[in-house]
């Protein structure tokens, strides 16, 4: 009897503890949401005031409750403060993606700013900004172009226009500079020519082959883009994905879909003979892998152009370093780094030099690709791709 009493007492105590914390937590989050809205409204009024105060406590940027106004500072001021920041922490900008490695190296050698990256998907990056809130540990991120507007609507980012604002086309930037797209890439086939005797140059070629094809995790932007590109190849569009799914169902039934991720190591071991990725990852992979001969081709019948937007965390612990990083990314040197990975710079006044074109793709190759300018339509199409893949293709895989 005594034992039962003890157990029930403990259970009651724990139940009360749990419920009270749970209720307290939801109340807390509600309050948190309210205060951030009021902060937004008073932003415009207090910008001038916060300028003075933020200049004073640059090192305590994380604790400032109003957002910092980077646009009213000169480049020299920002450079100065960035050097004081000494480091920049990024999300989703690893060295091997679009040649960020070179850019981070340049920033280090030019300004003495060190760098750390945590690689994550676009959703995870915004999630991180959101969950961390004022206790942020990340400064700058690189998200799929569909996520720029999301970041703005959730008020997660700072505005910074950089000195190259005017040369960036309107579709590649938020009107306040809260996100800016520095580069786009084209759908690309990366083929292991040692294992595949007839490398495909188009989706039609691929349909006739006998090798396995990998596109990566369907929840990731790269795979979704691959399916949409295949839709264009077979006569479909963002609204009509049926031709794409006919094609992929055919491949699935022939057991030609590889379930591996399209990461460098899987190409390196030869497990993935043909992968569909972006031009700015295909070139770096091709250059880095010595075990096999690889060839990067932009499919002639279906390729889309999609970009990635630079976003600066609203509560970034090193906002000035982040701003300087963005400035460098859009500078001639930064855009050139991007171009040498196979990315297409968005700045209208930057032309890719011939030697880089020879090492990657010519501008003529890129012309074949369809730009995805309508982000809402693209986002909706991506959602359809995921749910249709789960309903139609998944049951045929891995059996």
């Amino acid at each position, binding site marked *: 009897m005594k034992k039962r009493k*003890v157990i029930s007492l*403990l259970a009651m105590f*724990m139940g009360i*503890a*749990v419920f009270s*914390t*749970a209720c307290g*937590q939801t109340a807390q989050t509600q309050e948190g949401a309210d205060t951030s809205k009021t902060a937004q409204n008073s932003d415009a009024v207090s910008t001038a005031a916060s300028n003075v105060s933020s200049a004073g406590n640059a090192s305590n940027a994380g604790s400032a409750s109003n957002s910092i106004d980077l646009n009213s500072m000169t480049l020299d001021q920002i450079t100065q403060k960035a050097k004081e920041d000494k480091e920049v922490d990024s999300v989703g900008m690893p060295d091997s993606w679009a040649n960020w490695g070179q850019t981070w190296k340049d920033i280090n050698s030019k300004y003495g700013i060190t760098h750390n990256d945590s690689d*994550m*998907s*676009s*959703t*995870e990056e915004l*999630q991180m900004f959101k969950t961390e809130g004022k206790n942020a540990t990340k400064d700058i991120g690189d998200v*799929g172009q569909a996520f720029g507007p999301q970041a703005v609507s959730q008020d997660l980012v700072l505005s910074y226009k950089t000195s190259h604002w005017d040369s960036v086309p309107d579709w590649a930037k938020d009107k306040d500079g809260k996100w800016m797209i520095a580069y786009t890439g084209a759908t690309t086939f990366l083929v292991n020519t040692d*294992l595949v005797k007839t490398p495909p140059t188009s989706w039609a070629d691929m349909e006739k082959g006998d090798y*396995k094809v990998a596109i*990566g*995790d*369907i*929840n*990731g*932007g790269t795979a*979704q883009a691959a399916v949409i590109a295949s839709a264009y190849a077979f006569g479909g569009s963002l609204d009509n994905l049926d031709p794409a799914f006919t094609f992929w169902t055919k491949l699935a039934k022939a057991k030609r*879909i*590889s*379930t*591996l*991720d399209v990461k460098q*190591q*899987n190409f390196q*071991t*030869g*497990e993935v*003979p043909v992968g569909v990725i972006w031009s700015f990852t295909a070139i770096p992979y091709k250059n880095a892998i010595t075990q096999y001969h690889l060839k990067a081709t932009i499919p002639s019948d279906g390729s889309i152009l999609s970009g990635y937007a630079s976003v600066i965390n609203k509560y970034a612990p090193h906002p000035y370093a982040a701003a300087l990083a963005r400035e460098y990314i859009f500078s001639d040197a930064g855009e050139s780094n991007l171009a040498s990975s196979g990315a297409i710079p968005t700045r209208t006044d930057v032309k890719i030099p011939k030697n880089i074109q020879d090492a990657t793709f010519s501008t003529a190759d890129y012309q074949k690709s369809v730009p995805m300018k309508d982000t809402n339509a693209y*986002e909706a199409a*991506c*959602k359809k791709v*995921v749910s249709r893949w*789960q*309903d139609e293709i*998944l*049951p045929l*895989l*891995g*059996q």
Partner: protein
Amino acid sequence: MTRKKYGYLLALLPFFVVALMYEIIPLSMVLIKSFLPDEGGSFTLVNYKIIFTKLLYQRSIYNSMKISLISSLAGILIAVIGAKAAHAIKGRGKVSFMLILNMVSNFAGIPLAFAYMILLGNEGVLVHMGHYLGIASLEKFQLYTSFGMSIVYIYFQIPLATLLLIPSFDALKKEWSESAQLLGGTHSLYWRKIAIPVLMPEILGTFCILFANALAAYATVYALMMSDFPLLPVEIASNYVGEIQTRPGLGGALSVVMMSIIAVMITLSNILIKKLQKGVSRRG
């Protein structure tokens, strides 16, 4: 005497505090969120409805349970054989066996997936060997199927189970096997009628751990199959870290389902233990 007895409850306090802070509370948050729809709103069962009606999630529950059961059964079988063998040989051999087991139990996740890719993948060493030697089963081996996954799962179940069972086998009293021999019983009779029944609680307990371990395994299978093989932990993760949107409600509901499956398994095995214990007296 009674006051002293209740005083001992204090010893339980640190345990409960830690468990509460880092396990119970996060868990309750997940549970609560599972009843909230992702678009915002109040209490609803819509997440659970989605799980039980969408083919993808039905498949993941089925696949997860299938692979977990198979790999746990195979794992526990091999572990019993291994622990029994380790019990018989003492000294140096046993110690090095345990050393290797321990080292290999860290071999999981991407490194394990990578090793199996090199071994049995499309361009795997064994596959090439099968091609040269003309062994069709090796040459045609498909790693990226549910069969291939089971093989990989069994691999990481073995060290875990064996390590957990060796101490239990060590506790078998030598007197028991000696008396069994004196009474004219054979070696296998001893094992069948005395030792295994005595060890059943531990074996079943370890089986539950293996089951839960397999059910929750994520990194290894994700590296090999991405999201293309519907499994519960993969689906849960993709609801939290997808590219399009995070759906904590649905992810939470899936987690609750997973936890319930494990709870059911534990209850079943406890019932089984009670039934078996009826005839066995350990303090004899």
